[in-house]
């Protein structure tokens, strides 16, 4: 103990070149101890983080894909995979999103209008985002999409359950399936809200029960309506539908309103944003 408390007659003056010997000895030990504690803390904190998802965002890497583009219910491209035993054509759905926290609705709408409408074949150049069996592609600008020869018809979703309930959380698929880790939960709530407000379609993450696209009674995509409940654990009920390699949940839009008084919130958000856009 004595070594830790040097001669009290020693007096430290910071601007002199040297500190008294006894004080120096103690301070060296204190710093060494602090160093060891900090290194242990760094390792302990690093070790105890929740596992990150193995999803991937090919940032800065551009890939060409070819498929048939649609804007409903949300912008996507269907890539032909081959046929099943019954001879039915199978597709991999790749959701289309824009640069940063923006959707691709405008770009896709513009392209489809200039071509032959929904189902037009196109070559897209963008960065792939994929995880847990789902894929997205980030298209930065309209010129990254080139229409080519070919077209298919829209394939309607097939209802599998009349009334279905599921518990989970709403995520923004761009971050969740690879751009950010973690891309879910409280720490990510603000970002997910910003992505959804920017036009990235929300996805319901039902955990072991898979992922769901959300549409309302008239098959219109649900978007900013859910912004205030992103990241909350909620239960949604509605019709379950099978659609290519995705499941769609058709919900009564009133459910969402009731869940969180979302409507009022959404109006505030839009009012704020309009105000902000004007200020800018």
């Amino acid at each position, binding site marked *: 103990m004595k070594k*830790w408390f040097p001669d009290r007659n020693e*007096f430290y003056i910071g601007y002199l070149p*040297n500190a008294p010997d006894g004080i120096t000895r103690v301070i060296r030990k204190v710093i060494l101890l602090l160093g060891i504690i900090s290194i242990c803390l*760094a390792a302990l904190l690093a070790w105890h983080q929740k596992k990150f998802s193995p999803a991937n965002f090919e940032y800065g890497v551009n890939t060409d894909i070819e498929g048939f583009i649609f804007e409903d219910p949300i912008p996507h491209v269907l890539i032909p995979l081959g046929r099943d035993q019954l001879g039915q054509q199978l597709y991999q759905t790749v959701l289309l999103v824009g640069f940063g926290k923006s959707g691709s609705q405008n770009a896709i709408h513009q392209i489809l209008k200039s071509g032959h409408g929904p189902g037009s074949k196109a070559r897209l150049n963008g960065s792939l985002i994929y995880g847990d069996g789902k894929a997205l592609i980030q298209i930065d600008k309209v010129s990254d999409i080139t229409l080519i020869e070919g077209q298919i018809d829209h394939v309607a979703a097939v209802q599998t359950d009349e009334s279905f309930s599921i518990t989970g959380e709403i995520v923004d698929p761009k971050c969740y399936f690879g751009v950010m880790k*973690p891309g879910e939960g409280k720490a990510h709530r*603000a970002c997910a809200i910003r992505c959804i407000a920017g036009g990235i379609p929300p996805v319901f993450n039902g955990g072991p029960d898979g992922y769901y696209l959300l549409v309302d009674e008239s098959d219109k995509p649900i978007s900013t309506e859910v912004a205030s409940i992103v990241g909350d654990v909620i239960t949604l009920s509605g019709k379950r539908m099978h659609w290519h390699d995705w499941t769609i949940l058709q919900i009564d839009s009133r459910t969402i309103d009731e869940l969180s008084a979302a409507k009022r919130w959404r109006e505030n958000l839009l009012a704020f944003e309009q105000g902000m856009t004007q200020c800018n």
Partner: protein
Amino acid sequence: MSASYQSILWNRQKKIYDLVLVCFVVAYISIFITTTAVLDPDVTQETLIIRSTSTLALLLLHVILCIGPLARLNPVFLPLLYNRRHLGVTMFFIGAIHGTFSIIQFHSLGNINPILSLFLSNTHYESFIKFPFEVFGFFALIIFFLMAITSHDFWLHNLSPRVWKTLHMFVYIAYLSIILHVMLGVIQYETSPVLVVLLAVGFVAVTILHLAAGRREQLNDREQIEVKNDFVKVCNIDDIADNRAKVVALNGERIAIFKYSNKLSAISNVCKHQNGPLGEGRIVDGCITCPWHGYQYLPHNGSSPPPFKEKVATYDVKLVGKEVWLNPVAYPDGTEREPATIN
């Protein structure tokens, strides 16, 4: 001191302090990043930067908050206090890297300005649990910023020590803000209790040290003596060691009586720099030297030797036999008083 800020340029001890600090920062960040990347290669670079800097800033903040009371409890910690400013500025920069990357990652490239997005994305201000925790981090960072830019003695003099000290007391508000930032943020996402437990341990340590230091001050003041405009007996001459002081609290003022070169002089115990306890200082080269940052005052007039301009109040002191008597009526700062001579 005021007339010459250059007098405290980087000296050998400061260089050592900064070198140790840089090594410490580099070591912490490297270990955090390497451990995470090895244990979980799926992590992204942004998350590595955001988390290594945030946890390091939190750790440095705890160290900074503990140094003050530790130095009050035992002067051996004074070398850590002397350059605490560097620690504070470093903590601010590291916190700012975390904050900036968080804003870029979570709020940029959206449909509104990233800073506005910080306040307007999650708008659950009505709920405690869902509260936008980022706002607390932002608020704390602003406080750290103000403290960092005003940390130099130049600002201490220009803002007046009182305003400066008040501003720097905001560090406690910033600390509570950071606790909320973590508790309402990432703690709700993580499943491991490690961060909560460490945060609790840190909070308890900071609180206990402050209470202990406060209690010591109280004990020191216990010998409060109520007096009129007259000399009071304070102690025996042998109770004061050579070149050191005895501190007494009279009418709520702390007064330091120094014994040096067979003389006794009394001055206010409160250093003009940052209210350091002059009575815990020493006489060095004939000057009373503050234990905190080494400001100096001449014992007989409470004035810093030229070219410096600090001045503290002086008091009359006399010897009656072996008894030390003090008059608690303060003379204006810097008034020359004849020291009592010890025969």
